[in-house]
C-alpha cells in the first residue's frame, strides 16, 4: 500500500495537480477580455502590473490591507492557518527525505518543534474557521456543506500526520491515511475552490490592474486597499 501511494500514484497526483493549476492560470488569462472587463490591459500594461502587484502585496501582508486591519483576530487566524498549510508540507523533514530519495534534491528542513506547532496551528485554525462559520450570521448565511468539506480536505492530512507522528495506534495505517489524504488535498487544488491557491493571484492582479489603469492609477492616486 505504502509503495503504491508514494510511488506511481504520487507522481500521477503531482502531475495532475500542477498541470491542472497551470491550466487554470492559462485559462484565466485567456478569458480576460478588455472589452467585457472594460480594462485596457495591453496599452497600459505598465500601470496595470504595478498596481496589480501592489494589490497582491497588500493582501499578502498581515494588517496591510484595510480588511486585515478591521478584523485583527480573524487576520491572525487566517494567516497562521495559511502559513501552516503551505509551509509545513514543503519544509517538513520527512517530506524532504522522500524528496531526496526520489529526486536527489533537498530543501531546508523544519525543526521538529516548529513543524509540530505549524501542524497544530492548521488543525486548530481549521476548527476555528468552522466554528466561525457557525457563530457569525453573516458567515453562516454564506456557508454551504461544500465549505465544510473543503476545510476537512485541507485539514485531514495534518490530523492524520499528527496522529502518525505521535504514533497513536498503528503507525503504518495512519501513515498511509496521511499520504492518501495528502493526495486528495493535492488533487482538490485544481478542481475545487481551493484553486484559489493560484486564482487568488490572478483575481487580485486583475482588480489591481483595473484600479491601476482605469480607476485612479493613471490619475496619479493609488488605492490604499
Amino acid at each position, binding site marked *: 500500500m505504502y509503495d503504491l501511494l508514494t510511488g506511481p500514484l504520487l507522481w500521477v497526483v503531482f502531475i495532475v495537480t500542477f498541470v491542472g493549476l497551470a491550466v487554470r492560470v492559462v485559462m*484565466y488569462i485567456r*478569458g480576460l477580455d478588455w472589452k467585457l472587463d472594460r480594462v485596457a490591459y495591453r496599452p497600459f500594461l505598465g500601470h496595470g502590473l504595478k498596481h496589480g502587484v501592489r494589490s497582491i502585496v497588500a493582501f499578502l501582508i498581515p494588517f496591510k490591507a484595510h*480588511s486585515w486591519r478591521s478584523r485583527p483576530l480573524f487576520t491572525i487566524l487566517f494567516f497562521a492557518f495559511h502559513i501552516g498549510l503551505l509551509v509545513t508540507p514543503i519544509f517538513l523533514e520527512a517530506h524532504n527525505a522522500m524528496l531526496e530519495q526520489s529526486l536527489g534534491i533537498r530543501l531546508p528542513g523544519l525543526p521538529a518543534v516548529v513543524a509540530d506547532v505549524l501542524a497544530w496551528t492548521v488543525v486548530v485554525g481549521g476548527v476555528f474557521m468552522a466554528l466561525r462559520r457557525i457563530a457569525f450570521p*453573516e458567515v453562516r448565511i454564506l456557508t454551504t456543506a461544500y465549505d465544510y468539506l473543503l476545510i476537512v480536505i485541507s485539514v485531514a492530512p495534518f490530523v492524520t500526520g499528527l496522529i502518525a507522528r505521535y504514533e497513536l495506534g498503528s503507525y503504518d495505517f495512519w501513515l498511509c491515511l496521511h499520504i492518501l489524504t495528502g493526495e486528495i488535498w493535492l488533487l482538490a487544488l485544481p478542481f475545487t475552490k481551493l484553486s*484559489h491557491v493560484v486564482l487568488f493571484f490572478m483575481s487580485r492582479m486583475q482588480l489591481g490592474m483595473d484600479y491601476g489603469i482605469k480607476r*485612479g*492609477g493613471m490619475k496619479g*492616486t*493609488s488605492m490604499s486597499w
Partner: protein
Amino acid sequence: MPEGTLCNRQPITTEEQLKLVLNDKGGKQYYAEMEELEVDSDKLWGAIQKTLKSRTKTWLDICAHCGLCAESCFLYQVNGRKPEQVPSYKIQSTLGEIIKKKGKVSNEFMRHCMDVAWSWCTCCNRCGQFCPHGIDMGVMFSYLRGLLYSQGFVPWELKIGSGMHRVYRAQMDVTTEDWTETCEWMAEENEEEWPGLEIPIDKEGADIMYTCNAREPKHYPEDIAEAAILFHVAGENWTVPSEGWEQTSLSMFAGDWECCKDNVANVYAALERLKPKRAIGTECGHAHRATVIEGPYWVGREDGQPPVPYMHYVEWLLEALETGKIKIDPEKRIKEPVTLQDSCNYVRNQGLKNVTRKIIEYIVEPGYFREMAPNKEYNYCCGGGGGFNGIGKYRPQRNVALLKKLQQIKATGAKLVIAPCHNCWDAIRDLEEEYKIGIRWSFLKPLIIEMMVVPDHLKPEE
C-alpha cells in the same frame, strides 16, 4: 402572456412607445404585466455563456464565503446587519442561482433578482476593496442588471430612462432645440450682470467642449449659466455641441449596454466634429463615469481613453484656481463647518480624491473643513446611487439607505455639504427633506461664483 405591451424584452425605441409607458403612472400596469412576463431561458443562458468569462466566473467560483465583505457594504449596515444583505450572499443568491440553473429560473425569481439588483446594491464598488479575492460586487451587479434588462425585468423608471436615451439621446425629453434654446436663454438672462457672456454653440476648434447632464437644461438651467459664467471669468475659449451635449447614462443604471454605447458614440461624434482641444464634463459623477471611464470601452476604443482628454469639472476647476484664471476673495471663503461628499463614480472609480480637497483649500477658511469618516476611496455611497434615487418602487428602501450618509454628516457637525455630483446632491437634498437635520448642500459652481474675484473689465458698467 409571454410579453406585455408595456413590460417586455424590447427596449423602448420610439417616442410613441415611450409615451405609452410614461403615461402608466407609477408603472402600475407595467409591474402588473411583469408578473406575467415569461423568462426566455435560452436567450438568458446564451447571453451568459457569451459574456461570463474569467473575471466574473472566477469571482463566483472562488468566493471563500468568508464574510469579510459584509461590513464594507453600507446597505448591510443600515439594514440592521441582516445576513441577506451581505454582498457575497446578494450576488450568489441571484446571479449565482441563475447560472447554477443555466437560466431556467421562474418569473418570481427574476422579480426577486430585480429587487436585489436595484434596491440592495447601488453598484458603489466599495466592497471590492475589502474582499481578499478582489471580488467586486458592484461590477457583478451591473452585469446582473444587464441580464435582467434584456429579459424585461427592470424598474419602470429605468426602462423609461434608457428609452429616453434611445429616443432623445438624453435622460429626459430634451431635444436639440430645447437644448440650444436653453443655452441662448441662459446667456441672455445673465448678460446684463455679465456683459459679454456667451454660450457658444458648435464652435469648431475651441479649447474646451463642455457637456452636461440633461437635468440641467430641464430642471436647473442656472447650472449651465454658472458654467458659462465661470468659463467667461476664466477667459476660456469654449463651446457646447448642439448634438452630443448630454453625457449621462441612465442606460448604465438600467443595464442597457447597447444604448450606453450609442450615447457615448454621440458625444464622441461631437468631439470629432468640433475638434476641441479637450472636453470638460459637468459636476456629475455617473455622467463622468459613463462618458469618460466606461464609455471608451463601450464604443470599442482599445486604449480605454476618450478621443480627446476629458476632464471632470473638479479637475478643470482646480486647474483654473491653480493657474489663477479664477481667483478667490479670501474674505468670502466659507467660514462655517463644511464637509465634502466623495462621489464613488469619480473618486473610488477614477481616483480624483485629492483634486476636490485641493479645491477645498482654496475656498474654505482653514479650520472649517471636516472630513467625513471614512472618506476618499473608502467613502460610503450617498445612499441613492446606481439609479436608486429615481425608482419610486424602492423609495422606502432608499430612505433607509440615506441613513448612513446622515450619520456620517452629523458626525462631522457640518452645516454645509459640498456635493460635486448630481446624484449625491439629490440624495443629500432628499436626506434633509426626509430627516431634517438642518444642513444645506451645494454644487461647487454657485459657491465659487459667490466668492470669486471678478476682474473690473468683466463687471457691468454702472
